[in-house]
C-alpha cells in the first residue's frame, strides 16, 4: 500500500528533523509514499480561533487534493505526522459528516476549483501505520541496533489521542511503547504521556507554558528515563528547546534528551544519525549515544 504524506508547515521548518527521520524510516521499512502536491496549511488551532468555516475548508481542500492525487489507488491513506494537523483533518471529516449543510457548501465550493471531496480518505498518524500496518514483529525483525538498556519515556501529547482515539487509548496510550519494546528498549510507565506541554503558549504566554513543560521533564527524570520521545513537532520543540529557559526559571536541571520517536526508531534500525536529522537537535543526545555503546550516561 502507498501512502500520501501530508507534511504541514511545521515539518518543513522547526520540525524538519521529524520529516527527515520519518521518511528515512519509511524507506528503511519499505513503506511507499508520495508527498501531497500543493498542500496548504491544515487550518490548525490558530485558524480555528478566528474563522472556523475557513479552517474546515482548508483541511477539506487537502483531503480532496489527496483523493484526486490517488484517484487510481484502492485506498487513500493520508499520513499526517504533526499531531495538530492529524487532529484537524480528523475533526474536519467528522464535522462535515455530522453537518450535511456545511458539507454541501464546502463541496460546492471545492467543485468550483475542480476538486471533488469524496470523504473516503483515511487520516493516519505514523504511529498507527507502524503498529497496525507494519506490526511490531516485522519491526523487531529489522532492528539492527537494539536499544538495550535505554529507558524510554514515550510522550504522546494531547492531540494524537484527544479528542479522537482512533488507534490507541486516550488516557494511557501504549502504541509508541510497543514500538520501542520491539526495538529492545525498556519503557517507562508514567502518567505524563498525554499531559499538555503548553502548546503555542510557549511563544505567547511563557509564564503559563513553561511550568507545563517543566512538569513533564521533571517527571521523566524522576522516573529515570534516559530519553523522551515525541510524536508531534510542537511537543518536541517545547520540551527540548526551552530546557535552558525552564532551568533558569525554576533553578533546576531538566537536561534530558528529547527526540522524535522516528529518530529513535531510525537509530535502532541502524540508520545514520545525520539522515535522521540528529544534527538539527539543540544538543547532541549524548546520554542516548553513550548507553547505546554500552557506556554510562553523563547527565542524570
Amino acid at each position, binding site marked *: 500500500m502507498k501512502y500520501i504524506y501530508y507534511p504541514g508547515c511545521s515539518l518543513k521548518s522547526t520540525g524538519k528533523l521529524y520529516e527527515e527521520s520519518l521518511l528515512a524510516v519509511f524507506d528503511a521499512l519499505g513503506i511507499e509514499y508520495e508527498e501531497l502536491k500543493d498542500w496548504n496549511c491544515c487550518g490548525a488551532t490558530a485558524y480555528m480561533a478566528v474563522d472556523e468555516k475557513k479552517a474546515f475548508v482548508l483541511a477539506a481542500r487537502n483531503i480532496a487534493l489527496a483523493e484526486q492525487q490517488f484517484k487510481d489507488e484502492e485506498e487513500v491513506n493520508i499520513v499526517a505526522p504533526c499531531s495538530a494537523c492529524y487532529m484537524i483533518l480528523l475533526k474536519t471529516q467528522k464535522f462535515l459528516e455530522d453537518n450535511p449543510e456545511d458539507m454541501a457548501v464546502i463541496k460546492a465550493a471545492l467543485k468550483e476549483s475542480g476538486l471533488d471531496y469524496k470523504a473516503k480518505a483515511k487520516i493516519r498518524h505514523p504511529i498507527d501505520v507502524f503498529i497496525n500496518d507494519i506490526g511490531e514483529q516485522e519491526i523487531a525483525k529489522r532492528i539492527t541496533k537494539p536499544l538495550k538498556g535505554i529507558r524510554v519515556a514515550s510522550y504522546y501529547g494531547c492531540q494524537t489521542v484527544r479528542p479522537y482515539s482512533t488507534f490507541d487509548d486516550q488516557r494511557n496510550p501504549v502504541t509508541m511503547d510497543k514500538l520501542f519494546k520491539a526495538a529492545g528498549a525498556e519503557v517507562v510507565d508514567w502518567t505524563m504521556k498525554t499531559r499538555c506541554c503548553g502548546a503555542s503558549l510557549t511563544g505567547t504566554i511563557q*509564564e503559563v507554558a513553561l511550568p507545563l513543560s517543566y512538569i513533564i521533564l521533571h517527571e521523566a527524570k524522576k522516573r529515570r528515563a534516559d530519553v523522551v520521545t515525541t510524536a508531534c513537532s510542537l511537543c518536541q520543540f517545547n520540551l527540548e528547546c526551552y530546557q535552558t529557559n525552564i532551568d533558569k526559571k525554576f533553578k533546576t536541571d531538566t537536561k534530558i534528551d528529547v527526540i522524535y520517536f522516528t529518530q529513535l526508531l531510525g537509530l535502532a534500525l541502524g540508520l545514520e544519525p545525520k539522515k535522521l536529522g540528529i544534527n538539527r*537537535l539543540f544538543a547532541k543526545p549524548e546520554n542516548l549515544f553513550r548507553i547505546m555503546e554500552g557506556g554510562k550516561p553523563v547527565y542524570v
Partner: protein
Amino acid sequence: MDKKSVFAESFALDNAAKDIVEIRRRIKYESELDKSFRDKIAKSAHGEKLYGCIQCGTCSAACPVSHYMDYTPRKIIQMVREGFKEEVLTSSTVWLCASCYACTVECPKGIKITDVMYALKRESILGNYYPKKSPASILANNFFNQVLNNGRNSEGPLLVKMYLKTNPFMLFKNMALGFKLWIRGRISLKTERIKDKKALKKLLQSVEDKSIYKAEVNSPALKEASAV
C-alpha cells in the same frame, strides 16, 4: 449612633477605599444579562449540550491551566449560560486555553468545552473584545492572515510580527532561540506559499458567499485582513 451617621461613616469608608482599590460591582441585574449570548455560542460551537452542564467541575479539574485563568472552564460554561457576555469575552480564560481537549474528553455530559473556547475566541475577535496587546490573540490573527494570503504558515515571519506588535522586548529575548533554530536549518524568514494562491482565495471567498450564517465583524484587524 443614629441611622444617619452610620450611613455617613460607611460612605466615607467607601471613598477612602476608592483611593486604594477600584471597587467593582460584582453582581449583575437580570436586565443586564445578554440572554441571546448562550444560544449564539451554542450555535457557534455546534452544541446545545452546553445547556445541560451539571456544574460538576470535572473540566476545571482536568484543565492544565485552570489555576491561571480568571474564570475556570466550569465557571465560563455557567457564565455563558447566564449571559455574562462582556466578562466572558474579555476574560483571560479564552486566550489561555491551549486546546488540549482534556476537558472535552472527560466531561460526563459530553459537552465539547474546547469547541466552546474556540467559539469564544472567535466571538472575542469578531466583537473586538480581545486584548489588543495579548500575544495569543495577535498570533491567531496573524496566522489567519498569513494563511489567507499564502496558503501556508511561515513560522519565522509569524513570530517576528507577533513580537513586534505586542512586546518587542520579547523579540530580543527570543533572538538567541531563533538563532539556534536558524543555524540548524529549522527556521527561515522566508514566506512560504502554495502555487495556486489565487484558487485558494477564491475557494475561501466562495464558501463565505455560500454560507447562510454571516458573522457581523466589528474587529478592525479582521476587516483590514479581509480587505487585502
